[in-house]
């Protein structure tokens, strides 16, 4: 433990121990639907990061698709007041 500490003090770049990395990675793992159920010691950090990137990319794609559909719907609806009334009543 003490050797780790002295090493990190010298490098000055990362003072993060392996334990902390494992801990943070397992925290992240709980957020990824793909990996949520699995035991954290069976999933490597590399896999968790890979799945995180994939998940964020798929979320971005979904938002893009939704933006497409939403822009079409907004363009095709006739009156502003109709939309506004419907949405307001449904959200409140």
């Amino acid at each position, binding site marked *: 433990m003490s050797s780790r500490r002295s090493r990190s003090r010298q490098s000055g770049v990362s*003072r993060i121990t392996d334990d902390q990395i494992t801990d943070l990675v397992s925290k992240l793992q709980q957020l990824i639907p793909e990996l949520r159920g699995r035991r954290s010691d069976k999933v490597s950090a590399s896999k968790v990061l890979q799945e995180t990137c994939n998940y964020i990319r798929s979320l971005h794609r979904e938002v893009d698709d939704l933006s497409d*559909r*939403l822009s079409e719907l907004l363009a095709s609806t006739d009156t502003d007041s109709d939309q506004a009334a419907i949405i307001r009543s449904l959200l409140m």
Partner: protein
Amino acid sequence: MASLIPNLEHSPDMSPEFKRKKRRKTDETPGPFDRNQGSQRIKRWRTEREQQIYSSKLIEALRRSRRTSSSTPAKEVRETADRVLAVSAKGTMRWSRAILASRLGVGAKTMRKHKKAKVTANRSLRKPEIKGEKRKLPAVERKLKVLGRLVPGGRKLSFSNLLEETSDYIAALEMQVRAMTAITELLAGAGTQPPTDRLGSRINS
């Protein structure tokens, strides 16, 4: 630019003891207090209330921006959705500030110029060193880089800060998807179904 807000609980004490233990803000490891804050923030993204606030803000912003659309409608919607999402984060997270900062054209352009200069300088220095063998970063570091590019404002962050940002960003994105899906369904269904049905089910849920 280090984020100041997550480190509020640490006093700016500059005694020699503290200086020795002084952690750089970008390398700050989250303490127990931070973790509570973080998980509370993430829980907030998952509440119905937060989603409703976001939905109504988004719709307002979309109606306003329809009059002045400079780019394609879909891109406009995407940018508006991201901007409102960043505003909903109330400046607590770096990714939200990065999204809002990128709207200001001048700042973003100068930032990009500086970044480009740095990258080319590194490349020209590395080439003569490598002889036949490609120097590859370990897999984890490479993926960390990719993640840093995906999360707004994530390029300069330390490992632990990047993971914290990622956690919050993912929760926010999920809410964004839920909200936009709901709005799309409302608008798509509004033309064909009578709104009273949905109104009833809405109240009961």
